[in-house]
Each structure stands twice: as C-alpha cells, then as structure tokens.
C-alpha cells in the first residue's frame, strides 16, 4: 500500500514534469530537450533567492525566471525552428535545444555547484489509510495535482485554453478561426517553463534538486511524454502515474540501480504495443 501511495505521488510529479513538453510537441511538432534544465533553473533560482526573500516570493520569482527563460528561447532559437517544416523542424529543435541544455547546465553547474533546492515541510508523518506519509510528499502531490487540475480546466473550459487545443488538433483550422498559432506557441512555451519549475518545486519537497539534475529530468519528461502519446496532456498524466508506480515498485522490490533501466523497458513495451503512446492519436 505504501508503495502504491508513493508511486502515485511520484507519478503526479512526473505528469507535471511532462505536460509542458507534450503540449509544445502538440503545438508545433518540436521537442525541447532543455525542458529539465528549465526546471533546474527554477530550482536553483528559488534556492538562491530564498536566502534573501521570503519563501513564497522566492518561489514566484523562480517560476517567473523559468518562464522568462522559456520566452527568450521561443523568441530566438524556436523562431528559426518554426520556419522549417516536417522532419527538418524536429531535427533542428533537437539540435538547438540540446545546445541550450548544455549552456544552461554549464552556467548552473559552474556558478552554483553546491546549491540545492530542498524544501522541508516540518511536522510528523500524516496517517493516510494506515500508511504514514511524509508531509513533504503530500505537499508535492497536492501541488502537482492542483497544477494539473488547473491546467486541464484551463484547456477544457476557457476560451484561450480552447484556442490552445485547437492549434494542437488542427493548426490550419485554428488560423481560419482567427487564432494566431505563433502567439499560442509562445504563451504555451512560457507556461511550460513555469510548469517545469513547479515540477522542480515538487521534487524539492520530496527530495532535492541540484544543478546537475537537468539531463535526468529532461530524460524522465521525454519518457513520460512518449509513453503518454506525444501531444496528449491526459496521456502525460496517465503515463506519469504508470511510470511513477513502476519506478517506486522497482526501487522497493528490485533496487535503485536498475530503476531507470526498468522505466526505459516499460516505455519500450508500451511503444511496442501502442506505437502512438497510451493516448496518442495515430502515428
């Protein structure tokens, strides 16, 4: 039971980490391999700013910094990427965002080698259905769950959220409705930066985030996105939960050193059975 709870808690975090990545793919057919680096950027910013600001202000500032970094990326690198079509577009996005990931990694590791984001929620473990859960873990789950719920409400029930989905489903149709796909992509890119930052905060509540974690977070987000179906928000959530459960179970029953391998195997099996991912449309 405890394993299941931990798995769900971690799964929600994975879902939160992946939604931004999958929306960007859905909107423009590009992958952002600096996604985890945006998360780490927010984490380090929050850790550094917490020395000078009250925690809530540091949190807001950190998320804003990640969103601004994403905006800057959209205004520079992505401009070039969106000018291309099809395969060339994906490939250029991969190359340029890997480059960006190296740059962010380098800057953060050089300047903040020992900084860690570790957010503690003091107090004894809370008993849930007979399972003692750490408060940090509960806070992380609540954070991930409410962020995801807000995102889904935004996408389903607001006018602008529908505009985002319209571009994902049919870009030309959206243009014919008077919607500017470039503007939608820019807004969602910024949003994805903030969401990655939130995922880092959740991670900071359960364990810790340091400057070297970007690549691992990017890879995790990528696995979740692919398993869920590129471009599907609900798929990312579902895949997050599945992989979160697999992750914690394999940690408990098999051992930490093979968990990443087992995650990859799970992803592989899913793709073999459902090439478009759990909730992906076609291929």
């Amino acid at each position, binding site marked *: 039971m405890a394993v299941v709870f931990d798995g769900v808690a971690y799964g929600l975090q994975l879902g939160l980490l992946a939604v931004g990545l999958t929306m960007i793919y859905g909107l423009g057919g590009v992958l952002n391999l600096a996604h985890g680096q945006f998360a780490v950027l927010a984490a380090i910013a929050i850790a550094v700013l917490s020395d000078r600001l009250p925690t809530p202000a540091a949190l807001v500032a950190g998320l804003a910094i990640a969103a601004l970094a994403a905006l800057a990326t959209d205004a520079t690198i992505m401009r070039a990427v969106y000018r291309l079509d099809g395969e060339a577009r994906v490939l250029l996005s991969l190359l340029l965002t890997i480059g960006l990931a190296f740059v962010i990694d380098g800057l953060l590791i050089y300047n903040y080698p020992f900084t860690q984001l570790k957010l503690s929620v003091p107090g004894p473990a809370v008993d849930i259905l007979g399972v003692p859960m750490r408060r940090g873990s509960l806070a992380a789950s609540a954070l991930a769950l409410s962020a995801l719920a807000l995102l889904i409400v935004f996408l389903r029930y607001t*006018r602008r959220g*529908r*505009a985002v*989905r*319209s571009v994902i*489903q*049919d870009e*030309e*149709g*959206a*243009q*014919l*409705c*008077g*919607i*500017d*796909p470039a503007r939608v992509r820019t807004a969602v890119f910024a949003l994805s930066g903030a969401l990655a930052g939130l995922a880092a905060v959740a991670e900071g509540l359960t364990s810790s985030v340091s400057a070297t974690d970007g690549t691992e977070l990017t890879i995790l987000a990528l696995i979740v996105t692919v398993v869920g179906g590129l471009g599907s928000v609900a798929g990312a959530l579902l895949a997050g939960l599945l992989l979160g459960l697999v992750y914690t179970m394999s940690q408990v029953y098999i051992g930490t050193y093979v968990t990443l391998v087992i995650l990859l195997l799970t992803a592989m099996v899913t793709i073999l059975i459902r090439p478009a991912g759990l909730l992906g*449309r076609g291929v």
Partner: protein
Amino acid sequence: MLQVEDLDAGYGESLAVHAVSLHVDGGEAVAVIGSNGAGKTTLLRAICGLLRPRAGTVTFNSESLVGEPAHRIARRGVAYVPAERHLFPAMSVQENLELGAYPLRADRRQLELVFELFPRLRDLLSQQAGTMSGGEQQMLAVGRALMSRPGLLMLDEPTTGLAPILAEEAYASLGVLRGEGTTVLVAEQQVPLALDLADRAYVIEDGRIQMEGPAGDLQGNPDVRRAYMGIA
C-alpha cells in the same frame, strides 16, 4: 467587396495560378469552376493568406490582404471552408462552433442562425467532430465559418466526399445563405450545382481564367457543357 488583380501563386519554383483577376461584389454568389489541378484551391488559399501570393493584389473592402497572415485575414471577415474542412476532431460540435466565433467571443444569436440553417447540428451539439459523417462535418465546417459573421464566405469544393443527394443538400443550404444576402465565392468541379447557385462564374484551367460571365450564360455555353457537364 473582393478584388483580385493579376494574382500569381504557386509552390516552390512553379506557379499554379497565373495573373488571375476576379472580383466579387457584396451580396453576390460567384463560382470558380475548373477540373482537377486547375488551380482553384491555390487561388482560394492565396486569397485567404494560407499561401503567400507571388505577385498581384488582393483587396477586401478596399484594404489590401497581400502579406497578411491567415488568422488576420479571417478576422477581417474573409471566412474560408477548405475542402478537407479542418475541423477540430477531438472537440464537440459546440466547441467547434464557438471557436468559429473566437475573435468575437461566443455569440448566442449567431449560433441560433447556424442552427436554423443546419438543425441537425443542434442535435449533435456534444458529439465529437471527428466521429461525425461526411455530410455532418460539411455542415459543421460551414457553420463554424458562419460563426464569425463573415463578410465573404469562401468554400473549396463543399461537395468533396459527399454522395450526390448530400451534395445537393449542401448547395441548397448555400442557396439559403445567398438568399439571405451572404456574399459567397465557391470553387467547384461539380459544375452544374455551382452554376445553379452562382450569379456569375469564372472558368479556370492551367491556372488561368479562360472564361467569365453570368452563370446562366455559361450554363448555356456549348464549350462549358461539353467540358464540364458531360453534355455533347
């Protein structure tokens, strides 16, 4: 209302539309007829901004549309219904219609007008667009375009993929719209249907306008009858 002068448009190196000039006046229904590959789609896409014209001018209500992106041209009041429809497949009929009115925000009255024209859409309000039949999708595509209260409604082969009866029904609804004063520009291979609807028509072949005139005259023209209506 719409004025196209010497329009060139194409793909890569080659031109698919050469020096096309046409005009549509307010309240008119105009057809562009021609066979496969004649350049009809290219012409309409160049007008609505999905394809950038190479040369020539397009003016709508005396404002130039050349170089404007498609979403701005849509906001100016030029609605385009592509042959492939480009609906939002995983959204309901209602969401599709509401997105049609995106720049205006949801518009109850316009929605009622669309339901008056296509009562079927009211019954299907919560159905996903991707699961509807071809005829229903065609209604939804036209309905979505009307939601923006367009000044000009452009349609590319609205009969694509429809059985003959449904094709006639589609043109019957266009006839109703025309009767209400909507300005229509339609590209069509189903020449008899289009000429029945239209006030005037242009014949396009190999990207060039070959003939133009009142629809009634073209209906009686022996060349048109032989080439497009299967009548000797």
